[in-house]
């Protein structure tokens, strides 16, 4: 299977007045053709930064290191013109459309067509036909083409965003929190639509959200992020139902599946705040909040992604594949 996206040791450092803020600290990730990879974590863990980094949309002054191979080509080494050509045609992003991702003073049809025309995939008339078809495809009547964003509901705007993301037949679609800020019923509809589109079109996707229960439904594989690093990855069901990393367990417990006996009577949350990116704790960055912390080890040794099961890895001393560590109880 060829890879649509390959991140190699990706590091992103934001520039602020108070110095550099490392948001992503060495991430490796691959997305195969037709594969859906879920990326999860608390806000501020760097997952949305990765989405923006793939299309080089980060603010000026941000330092991005490592390699971002999109269909084998490094995005970070592209010229401005090449980059513009790759944006949307190579990879597109479904932003949180419910809020302000659509230009309020232009018709939604125009905004979708704009992408098609800019990439030279059609002239204006053909683009209009294609936009109509796209809108039908995401479950909106094609007459909505002439609507302004304020005339649409939150869910409809999100459907427009999805249609827009599909407009140029990209090889990768990044969904960045596509269901956040929608009400629960609409969330379920949008999620169902995304799942169907993915299956019908064989889309390769990176799906980003903090909601693990959503991810497990749509993803083939899951990668969990904490403090700018991936701390656990593996097949979706396995990661969700039998996580190794205590952080993943806590995250899974925060979104109990209805009817799942394991969560009955045990509503659980995670105490504390994610670490300050400029001041990440030594050792395992999670150890100050960890329920299974091993004193004398976790605050000293930063674990790597060790094998924790079939096709899965966890950056935790409790991983089955962890090497013998000094101070670990047998």
């Amino acid at each position, binding site marked *: 299977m060829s890879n649509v996206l390959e991140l190699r040791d990706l590091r992103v450092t934001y520039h602020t007045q108070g110095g550099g803020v490392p948001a992503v600290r060495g991430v490796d990730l691959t997305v195969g053709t037709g594969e859906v990879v879920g990326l999860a974590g608390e806000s501020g863990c760097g997952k949305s930064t990765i989405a923006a980094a793939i299309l080089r949309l980060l603010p000026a002054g941000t330092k991005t290191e490592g390699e971002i191979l999109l269909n084998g080509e490094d995005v970070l080494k592209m010229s401005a013109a090449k980059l513009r050509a790759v*944006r*949307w045609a190579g990879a597109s992003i479904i932003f949180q459309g419910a809020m302000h991702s659509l230009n309020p*003073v232009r018709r939604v049809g125009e905004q979708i067509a704009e992408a098609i025309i800019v990439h030279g995939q059609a002239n204006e008339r053909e683009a209009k036909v294609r936009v109509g078809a796209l809108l039908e495809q995401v479950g909106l009547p094609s007459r909505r083409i002439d609507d302004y964003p304020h*005339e649409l509901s939150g869910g409809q705007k999100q459907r427009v965003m999805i249609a*827009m993301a599909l407009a140029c037949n990209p090889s990768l679609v990044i969904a960045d929190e596509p269901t956040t800020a929608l009400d629960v019923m609409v969330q379920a509809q949008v999620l169902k639509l995304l799942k169907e589109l993915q299956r019908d079109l064989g889309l390769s996707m990176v799906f980003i959200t903090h909601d693990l229960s959503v991810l497990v439904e749509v993803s083939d594989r899951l990668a969990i992020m904490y403090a700018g690093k991936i701390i656990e990855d593996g097949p979706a069901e396995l990661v969700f139902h039998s996580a190794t990393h205590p952080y993943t367990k806590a995250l899974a417990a925060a979104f109990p599946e209805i009817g799942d006996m394991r969560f009955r009577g045990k509503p659980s949350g995670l105490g504390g705040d994610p670490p300050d990116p400029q001041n990440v704790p030594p050792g395992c960055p999670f150890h100050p909040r960890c329920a299974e912390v091993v004193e004398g080890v976790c605050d000293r040794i930063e674990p790597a992604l060790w094998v924790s099961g079939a096709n899965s890895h966890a950056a935790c001393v409790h991983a089955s594949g962890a090497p013998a560590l000094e101070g670990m109880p047998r």
Partner: protein
Amino acid sequence: MGARRYFFKKTAYALLTLLFVLTFNFVMFRVLPSDPVAQLTRSQKLSRDDVAELRHNLGLDQPLPTQYVTYLKQTAALNLGRSILSGRDVWGEIKARLPATIALLSLGTLFATLLGIWVGIKGGWKRGSTFDTSSLFTSQVFWSMSEAWLGMVLIVVFGSILGWFPTGQWQTPGDATAIQRLADWANHLFLPVLTLTLGYFGEYAIIMRSSLIEVKNDDFVLTARAKGIPDREVRKRHAVPNAFLPTFTLIFLSFGFVLGGAILIEVVFSWPGIGQLEYDAINNLDYPLIQGIFLLSSAAVIFFNLVADVLYSYMDPRIRES
């Protein structure tokens, strides 16, 4: 349906504002002064009979509500009284001065707006660039100048020292062909218009700049960039149309301020417009003229704000199509 209701609402609001201005004027000149007749006829020697007749003519012997209604009727008929200084009809005096003021104001506002918006867009889009920091500072410096002083400096530099432009009046007396007259007129207009432009472009530049900086951070601009649209097009098609909306409102809101500047500039350049008339009125305490100019300039500002509201509703689909 929505657009029409919006229009009616705004018109009703403008009429209400006008009524407020009229009432304010009535209170200031008819109710508050202890002796309105003395004020309105200042410096004229009148016999007791004359005063009594004038009181009667002005309706000052009537109860206040009656006076108010009479006053409204008279104002509606553009009967604004007589100037103390010239003895002529106030509306006639003002009408004669309108063309000069309209020429100065419209050209000055036009150039100030164009320059300000251009500078604001160019600076705000590349925030922190050399162009941005220097143009922001220049805008602030010109904003901080007294219009009268700026006019004086320009007169001395371009008029007295360099001798490029005439420094007063709006035409050279004497016979001339139509083209010569137009050239002469443009020549006279140049410095006053330049003063107004320099005095006010800074405000528009600053407003446009901060509006664009805010819009630049909006999500839809990121969406546009993600779509692979070239930077210039993102600015032209997405950022500027949105940033311009609040700027547009503020440009019309500031019309009252520009009018103030124009009055000062007219005085400095001996420009034969309303400002010059107002200056003479102040120095002779010509109250009928002062209140006439107050009423008409207020009415003009209210009218332009109404126009702005209507135009705005055409530009912003959120109002137009709701």
